[in-house]
C-alpha cells in the first residue's frame, strides 16, 4: 500500500478533482463536529442555567428570611 500522490500539492490538486473531494470532506467534518459539540454544550448550558436559577431562588429565600427575622441578621 503506497501513497498515491507524488507530492503534497498533487494530493491537494487530485488531478482536478480536489475542489469536489475536499468540499465534500470539509462539509462532512463540520457537520460531524456539530453533532457532537451541540448536544454536549447544550447539556452543560442547561445545568449551568438551572444552577443559576436555583441560586437566585435560594438567595431570594434567604433575603426574605432575613427581612422576616431582622434580629438574627446581625
Amino acid at each position: 500500500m503506497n501513497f498515491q500522490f507524488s507530492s503534497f500539492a498533487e494530493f491537494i490538486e487530485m488531478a482536478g478533482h480536489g475542489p469536489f473531494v475536499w468540499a465534500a470532506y470539509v462539509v462532512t467534518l463540520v457537520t460531524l463536529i456539530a453533532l457532537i459539540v451541540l448536544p454536549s454544550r447544550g447539556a452543560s448550558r442547561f445545568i449551568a442555567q438551572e444552577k443559576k436559577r436555583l441560586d437566585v431562588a435560594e438567595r431570594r429565600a434567604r433575603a426574605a428570611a432575613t427581612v422576616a427575622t431582622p434580629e438574627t441578621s446581625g
Partner: protein
Amino acid sequence: MNWQWFHRLGSPRWFYQKTQAWLPWLAIASVVLLVTGAIWGLGFAPQDAKQGNSYRIIFIHVPAAVLALVGYYVMAISGAIGLIWRMKLPFVVMRAAAPIGAALTFVALFTGAVWGKPTWGTYWVWDARITSMLLLLLLYIGVIALGQAFLQERTADKACAILALVGTVNIPIIYKSVDWWNSLHQPATIKLTESSSIHPSMFYPLLVMVVGFYCFYAWSLILHTRQQILVRERKTRWVQQMVASGSTRLVEEGGKA
C-alpha cells in the same frame, strides 16, 4: 423469565448512568476509525479507473447514506416501542435521532451532489434515489418540527412516533430505487449475497469508514439523548442533585460513579 432489564431500559436515569462510561470509548473508536479510514481513502486507496480521484467521496458518501437509513429505523422503532409499551426513554431516543438523521441525510445529499458534478456533469438530477433521499430529509425535518409544535411533550411524542412510522414506507423505496428505476446513480457496490463489485483495496477503507460512522452515530445519539433526558427530568431529585453540583456527570449515591 426475568424482564427487569427491559423495564430498566425504560428508565431515563438508568440510561444516563449506564451510558456515562461508554462515551469515552465510543469517542475514541469513532475518531480513530474515521481518521484512519479518511487518510486511507484519500491518500492510499488507488485511483478509480473510470472516475479518477472524485470517487474518493465514496468513503463518506456511502457511510453517511447507510447511517441516514439505519437512523430512520432507529427513530421509527423507538417511536413504536414508546407507543406500544408507553415507556419514556424510547420517545427521548426517537426525538434525539431526528436531528442526527437529518444531518447525515444532508451529508449524503451534499457529498452526492459534489460527486455528481465531475462524474455525471451535474450536481442534481430528479431520479428515484436522490428524490427519495430528499423525501427522507423532509421526513426527518418533519419529525423535528412536529416535536416543537406541541406544548405537551406526550402529545408531541405520539405525533412524532406516528409520522416516523408512516415514513418507514420510504426506506425500502430508497434502498431498491436504483434497481426499480433507470437512474444515473450506480447500483450497490457491496452486496451481502453475491460478490461485491468493489476491489478490496477500496473496500477495506470503506468498511473502516462504515464501522466508524456506526460508532459515531451511537456516540452522537447517546449525547443527544442525555441532553434531552436532563431537560425532561429536570424536576427529579437526581437531576436536581446534578444541578446543585454544577456537573453533567451523574455520581451515584454511596460514592459509586
